[in-house]
């Protein structure tokens, strides 16, 4: 697997560098890595650094609950923005649940937070590292700051819950920094998306395929995140408390952040995204994808009320169902037509259970 010596890699790099103009897949994988993937991972890591600092500051009484919540919401939005980019270290290490545990059908977050603090009132970082993924991430942090049964503006409650809040912040900071480090450097994930062949990909097209798979998988995930509270899998009966991030009412803003990243993969930072791989004779498909993105984005932006309110009346549910259908069209276009047009097999783990 790791036979390639650094020298060989360097030579390969030189050779590839020499043959301009670049092959389109190579151009795209380079552009997306530098223009979309790396910046998103950096921003996420920075948001988690601020989250860890905020937990300390809030618990020391130097920040109020409102500020702490705001910083949490930023970290959560950065994580949502990362969803279409879950390839490489984060996906392979089975680490995503450490960042956010969802779906949480049985309210494990509340149950495990309370039982952990009962067992370890003087919780340490090491205690958290050994604990369940359920209490390590944003879902537990959200529970602490937003659940109606808690009030961390109250000093006595802060004393009880702050060790956990601080430990989660620190855990997220450490985890995200480690992931970013695995993206950077000569043998990092980013380099492997830019220079070929390497131990991961034989050629640029494989890297583009992997990026597309991650995006399509995330688009499918968006349907699930909207469909679950909407009751698409539960006889049409809305399940607002099964929504992702329901406590902080960020389900829809999370969707918007993820969708925006998917569209960035499509367009690229400088019109150098996946779209640029389609030939002139595939322009019609490109336009339909442009429209599909625009439709989903527009519908999402037009939702003026929070999710639980929309779920409560028919007009709201109609709007959400229309958004679901729009996301479904977008997903199908990618899965069926775009993948085919690019000659990419989505195959295994494409999460398409239909």
């Amino acid at each position, binding site marked *: 697997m790791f036979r390639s010596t650094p020298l060989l890699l360097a030579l390969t790099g030189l050779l590839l560098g020499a043959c301009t103009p670049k092959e389109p897949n190579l151009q795209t994988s380079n552009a997306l890595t530098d223009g979309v993937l790396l910046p998103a991972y950096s921003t996420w890591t920075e948001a988690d650094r601020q989250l860890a600092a905020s937990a300390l500051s809030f618990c020391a009484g130097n920040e109020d609950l409102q500020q702490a919540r705001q910083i949490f919401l930023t970290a959560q939005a950065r994580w949502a923005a990362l969803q279409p980019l879950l390839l490489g270290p984060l*996906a392979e290490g*089975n680490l*995503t*649940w450490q960042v956010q*545990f969802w779906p*949480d*059908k*049985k*309210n*494990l977050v*509340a*149950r*495990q937070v309370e039982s952990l603090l009962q067992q370890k009132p003087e919780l340490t970082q090491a205690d958290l590292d*050994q*604990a*369940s*993924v*359920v209490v390590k991430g944003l879902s537990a942090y959200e529970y602490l700051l937003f659940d109606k049964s808690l009030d961390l503006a109250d000093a006595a409650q802060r004393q009880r819950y702050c060790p956990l809040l601080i430990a989660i912040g620190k855990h997220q900071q450490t985890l995200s920094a480690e992931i970013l480090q695995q993206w950077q450097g000569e043998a990092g994930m980013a380099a492997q998306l830019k220079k070929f062949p390497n131990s991961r990909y034989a050629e640029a097209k494989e890297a583009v395929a992997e990026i597309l798979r991650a995006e399509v998988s995330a688009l499918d*995930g968006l349907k*699930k995140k909207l469909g679950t509270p909407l*009751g698409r*899998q*539960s*006889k*049409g*009966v*809305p*399940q*607002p*408390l*099964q929504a992702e991030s329901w406590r902080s009412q960020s389900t829809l803003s999370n969707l918007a952040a993820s969708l925006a990243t998917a569209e960035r993969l499509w367009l690229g930072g400088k019109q150098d995204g996946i779209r640029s791989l389609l030939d002139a004779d595939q322009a019609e498909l490109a336009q339909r994808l442009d429209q599909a993105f625009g439709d989903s984005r527009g519908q999402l932006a037009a939702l003026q009320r929070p999710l639980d309110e929309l779920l409560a009346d028919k007009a709201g549910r109609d709007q959400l169902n229309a958004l679901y259908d729009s996301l479904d069209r977008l997903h199908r276009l990618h899965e069926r037509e775009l993948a085919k047009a690019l*000659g990419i*097999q989505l*195959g*295994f*783990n*494409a*999460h*398409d*259970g239909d």
Partner: protein
Amino acid sequence: MPRTSLAAASLLAVAISLAGCDDKKESASSQAVAPAATAPAATAQADEAAAKAVVRHYADLALAVFGDALSSAKALQQAVDALLAKPDADTLQAARAAWIAARVPYMQSEVFRFGNPVVDEWEGQLNAWPLDEGLIDYVATDYQHALGNPGASANIVANSEIQVGEEKVDVASITGETLASLNELAGSEANVATGYHAIEFLLWGQDLNGTAPGAGQRPASDYVVGEGCSGGHCERRRAYLKAATDLLVSDLEQMVGQWQPQVADNYRASLERKPAANGLRKMLFGMGSLSLGELAGERMKVPLEANSTEDEQDCFSDNTHNAHFYNGKGIRNVYLGEYRKLDGSLLSGPSLSSLVARADAQADASLKADLDASEARLQALVDSAAKGQHFDQLIAADNAAGQQLVREAIAALVKQTGSIEQAAARLGIGDLSPDSADHSF
């Protein structure tokens, strides 16, 4: 990703590609079609015949497995009748033993679920899980349920009318039909009123030990009529247990009927009418989906990673190790064309394994080796339980060695799924996409 050598594709593969089961075929199989033009038609027919024999035997396996599930459910029914006739520790113990015995064939039947809609659309009434048991009967005060489930504490045993959100539901008479109508009440999939797990809860009660040793401890006196009745409402609890058990038996009878040979309008007839490739795809898809998304993912990875006994398959009885082992056995059965019946005899016949071996002996050998490895890893969970450490203890946050056992079983199942995909490709079935249930490994 290992690549499929075109040369390795056998004439059989070509035949299957030509037969074509749906429009899902991708470039790999359309490439394989090209040389078919020169293939002797007789050979192609012979291979289609061989593949059809494999599908027919698959239906025989299903018939035998569901038949055993039915006979062991009838034995459970008798044991439940005996418990109700004379509720004491011995009859309760016997009913629990009968439930555990009934799980052996049923768990081997689950490989038929994925890919066969007739099974998939039917199985929820029998094996839905995890459930909010407070829908059924009394629960401890620290009981946790699905968020927003209005039926989570309805307690059908204690109430002849239950309040679910705004709605009142009449449950005065407890029949199989009434209970079945309460499944997924108010849209919540945690509302499970029927099936193996409802019966399991009625026989064992809640397991209040978390990740510590011990299963549910329901006393037999919960079924005593009149004086001595514990838990309250014993008459209704008795009626519930009886109705749920009878429903299980009649549901299984119905499924056995779907797999009987020479019945013009049952599921088996429609399966056998279609091109063999359609059946082979279902077999492989079922194996892969149970192996990956369901067993490795929903049933092992979720409870392991979340240290969640709530997500344990047979959580009231602590029988999860067996549930997992026999799920694995079912996957193996379908590939090898074998099933060890409850009467001890071995049913065997034309197998997927032999078809794959003819196309690529190496692919067959790899998958067999993987099946052996996963069985050994699942056996390790059974052995651990025999030594007193059950699945719910293995997944405890502070049990590193226990977690490792579960992790190894998951890894073996994931690896095996890769080989299932390879085997499928050798038979010309590309893009198998086993259901991953949204898990990545």
